């Protein structure tokens, strides 16, 4: 016999289901008067530092059909590369930037949209700088455990080329699935859940 480690097991995930909006974006689905506004709809204010951008896109299933019932959360550093989190030990992040956003895909078009800023670079575990990126978490009906991916920026070719996470992708043909294309004032990022264009998802 050995000493028991005594660790608990993480609660198992279950799908968010088709009515995730009731809990996470109630105003979006017409349940008004309970919360003043839906959490995560506003990431920036007038004093937020950095370049304003929009992120738009769709989440597509294995047939290329957009999901009209997905929910996406994003988490990113501020313009100086600092996270608005108690676990951020490198300095104080911009108090006018939450770093976290939540958006449902449109019930008709499947489009999602975030209004945010372009993040600064943050270090990898060994201190090398990662390219600017936004972390995404995607849940929906039919997704049993939330999917994690990253958005990188198409106009950061030099930084992307030295990014230690992108460098780990063995099949180089898949790297572009994580690169958002510049599109007007922002970037477009489609997420393919399955198939030939399947987005790289992470076990974080």
């Amino acid at each position, binding site marked *: 016999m050995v000493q028991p480690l005594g660790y608990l*097991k993480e609660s198992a995930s*279950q799908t968010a289901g088709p*009515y995730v909006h*009731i809990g996470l974006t109630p105003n979006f689905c*017409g349940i008004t008067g309970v919360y003043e506004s839906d959490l995560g709809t506003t990431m920036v204010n007038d004093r937020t530092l950095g370049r304003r951008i929009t992120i738009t896109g769709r989440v597509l299933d294995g*047939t290329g059909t957009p999901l009209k019932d997905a929910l996406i959360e994003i988490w990113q550093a501020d313009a100086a590369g600092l996270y608005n989190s108690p676990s951020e030990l490198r300095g104080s992040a911009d108090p006018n930037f939450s770093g976290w956003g939540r958006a449902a895909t449109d019930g008709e078009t499947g489009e999602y949209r975030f209004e945010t800023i372009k993040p600064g670079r943050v270090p990898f575990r060994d201190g090398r700088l990662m390219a600017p990126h936004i972390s995404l*978490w995607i849940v929906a009906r039919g997704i049993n455990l939330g999917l*994690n991916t990253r958005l990188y920026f198409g106009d950061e070719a030099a930084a992307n080329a030295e990014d230690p996470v992108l460098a780990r992708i063995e099949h180089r043909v898949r790297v572009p699935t994580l690169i958002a294309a510049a599109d007007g004032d922002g970037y477009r990022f489609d997420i393919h859940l399955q198939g030939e264009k399947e*987005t790289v998802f992470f076990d*974080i």
Partner: protein
Amino acid sequence: MTDLSNRKPETGAFFSRDRLWHPPGLTPGYKTSVLRSPQKALLSLDGTVSEITGPVFGHSILGELDNDLIHNFAKPGESAIGERIIVHGRVLDERARPVAGALLEFWQANAGGRYRHKKESYLAPLDPNFGGCGRTITDADGHYAFRTVKPGPYPWPNGVNDWRPAHIHFSVFGHGFAQRLITQMYFEGDPMIWKCPIVQTIPDRAAIEQLVAALDWGNTIPMDARAYKFDIVLRGRRSTLFENRMEGN
């Protein structure tokens, strides 16, 4: 966003997720998963600062009735119809330490199994006094509680005669983005748990049982509401023992 404790913030990376314990992506008995599950392997990424940090929410976001689903959508003086229950428990990490300041959001159908959502077409009626959403933040010991009515089971278009057991959806934030979790709580003694294709996406019976809330007679309020106890476990954090990381990361 504020730190709710005086303790030094934890900054270790998280225990890796046991993906044999969680449901896999592809679970054909739950039909929608077939076209919505990745076919390629996940890329492993041990926590960088992007994963070990996460948003923390202060109490300023909460309204007075946010944890009272019996009243938060009801007309003044009225309340939702159904079995009155209190759901409470703790949010812990895998090292059994309380997760303080964790935002919990929950949503559910009404007592007849009807959701307040435009895409829902079940013939059971809406309750004009029930919205179905609530939220709260755990205290310093990781405790939370809310009041609601017990949701009813409802049919769904999967198999020809599939019904969901009574359940409440939970969305949980820990302290790091990698801890983000959505799950469902089931009720002790419900025979429908074991017939459900969504429950059956979880391979291990012990993992399912961990999602079944126990009737908590001790906390039942006489002549008012029964209580169910539901603890939630998030990923543990490594101690930062001998971690070879650059200063400032």
